[in-house]
């Protein structure tokens, strides 16, 4: 029996985030042949982004446009009436800042369960089973909803999206919702994340540890990240030493990441750091100390001074791009 499943889309700086398409793919698994309905809330005209959700596999999309949609409090007010109207059997959203904020609010209002941060979704004998990391990836659990709505968030970059198909057709309808009594107001946003690539969604991360030695020491790492189309991260050691902002920290406290390529520079590999990155697809370690623990999880290691190795790596990658 097919289920009706809602996908809550997410807009960042005027376009849909990739995890929205991954959520549609996950919703397809949950729906088991049923209907997948996209929901999109934000300011301005959302029609085009609604259509994009259709191209990635949503059967139809409901949009709620309102000027006051900046906080999760506003989004909750916009999306809740859609949930009431559609009464879905499942809801899927990305496990992003917005998803982490919004979905528990909705689940609490709906008195439903919620499985957060799933890295895999599968239908096993008619039951939907979610796999999610616990203890920052030191272990995994399989979890299912035992009562009511199948509600889950998925970790970006883990569940592949369906291929975009612009021949797909589906209705995009706009819905009017009253947004009122907003109690949290955003006064200002200070952009710190480099070139808008967020750690949780980055395909390539170049991370620095104590071995980077200073704030300026991050410069070659930034250059490498740039030529690889990735972003820079850090170990707790580098953050505690004041070389970079805590928002870059990867580890058991900090962000847990799963990029395609993780390049650890001058990171010794404390267990707390490994918990945050060891599920990356390919790991490269660059460290002066051949005994460093990071080499135990690395696919490829270079024993050497990062200030010698990283600039050479930048040149080599540039060369590769030129030849390609």
């Amino acid at each position: 029996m097919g289920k009706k499943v809602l996908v809550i889309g997410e807009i960042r700086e005027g376009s849909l985030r990739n995890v929205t398409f991954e959520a549609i793919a996950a919703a397809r698994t949950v729906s088991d042949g049923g209907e997948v309905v996209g929901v999109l809330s934000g300011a301005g005209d959302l029609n085009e982004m609604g259509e994009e959700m259709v191209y990635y596999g949503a059967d139809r999309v409901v949009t709620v446009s309102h000027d006051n949609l900046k906080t999760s409090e506003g989004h909750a007010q916009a999306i809740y009436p859609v949930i009431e109207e559609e009464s879905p059997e499942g809801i899927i959203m990305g496990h992003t800042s917005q998803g982490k904020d919004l979905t528990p609010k909705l689940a609490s209002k709906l008195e439903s369960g919620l499985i957060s941060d799933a890295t895999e979704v599968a239908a096993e004998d008619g039951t939907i089973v979610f796999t999610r990391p616990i203890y920052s990836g030191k272990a995994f659990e399989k979890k299912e909803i035992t009562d009511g709505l199948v509600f889950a968030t998925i970790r970006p970059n883990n569940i592949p999206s369906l291929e975009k198909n612009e021949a797909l057709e589906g209705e995009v309808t706009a819905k009017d919702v009253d947004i009122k009594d907003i109690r949290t107001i955003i006064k200002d946003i200070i952009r710190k994340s480099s070139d808008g690539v967020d750690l949780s969604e980055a395909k390539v991360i170049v991370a620095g540890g104590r071995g980077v030695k200073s704030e300026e020491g991050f410069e070659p790492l930034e250059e490498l990240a740039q030529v690889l189309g990735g972003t820079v991260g850090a170990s707790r050691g580098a953050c505690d030493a004041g070389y970079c902002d805590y928002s870059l920290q990867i580890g058991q406290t900090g962000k847990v990441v799963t990029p395609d390529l993780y390049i650890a520079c001058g990171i010794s590999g404390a267990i707390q750091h490994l918990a945050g990155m060891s599920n990356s697809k390919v790991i490269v370690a660059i460290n002066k100390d051949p005994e460093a623990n990071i080499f135990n999880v690395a696919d490829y290691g270079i024993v050497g001074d990062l200030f010698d190795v990283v600039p050479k790596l930048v040149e080599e990658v540039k060369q590769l791009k030129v030849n390609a």
Partner: protein
Amino acid sequence: MNIYVLLKRTFDTEEKISINSGRIEEDGAEFIINPYDEYAVEEAINLRDEHGGEVTVVTIGEEESEKQLRTALAMGADKAVLINTEDDLEDGDQFSTVKILEAFFADREIDIILGGNVAIDEASGQVGPRLAERLDIPCVTTITSISVDGETVNIERDVEGDVEKVETSLPLLVTCQQGLNEPRYPSLPGIMKAKKKPLEELEIDDLDLDEDDVEPKTKTTEIFLPPEKQAGKVLEGETEDQVKELVSLLKTEAKVL
């Protein structure tokens, strides 16, 4: 101010995880206050010192959680509450936890509730926003600074690396992110005083709840360890050659370039 902190006892971050009969092996493990909840305790103490009032730390758990509550008291919290679910709840989830907390806060005056933005074990991050929704108070997650001026509260929060400046009002629930403060270590006099501070123990029965009310909505069917990562290839030769080999391996073998 009536300041509350939601606290969870968790595995020490140093601990390796092993599995015994389908469950995480707890024997011999060291336990700590969830690191993000530690930021909440520290901030609560600072808010009290600035604005007056009282800090109450609340945890749901078993008898063993008393140790982490005493640590929070030794840091400077005034009172502690242990809601002991040992006899009533085997495998609760976030729904169960919030049901209990909602009942606990039902007839209490609240100015601010602080919690960690996530617990390092289950890592759902649901309890804070869920509870705020039940109590119908504003909720701001992943905060890195907070200042209270009368009823008005100004907050900076970490949003995937960017800083969002938010204005809101009391009563309020916030969840704490790294960078908010540097939690203090309990002092020796603090530890002595903590032994005499009030620690109240409740069961869900005392909150007019029974087992059916807190029945979870989710269940864990399996726990497993990720496949052990094999140590890879350490390259050799001159740096130039190693770098060339690495780029070639990343392109042809690992196929990530």
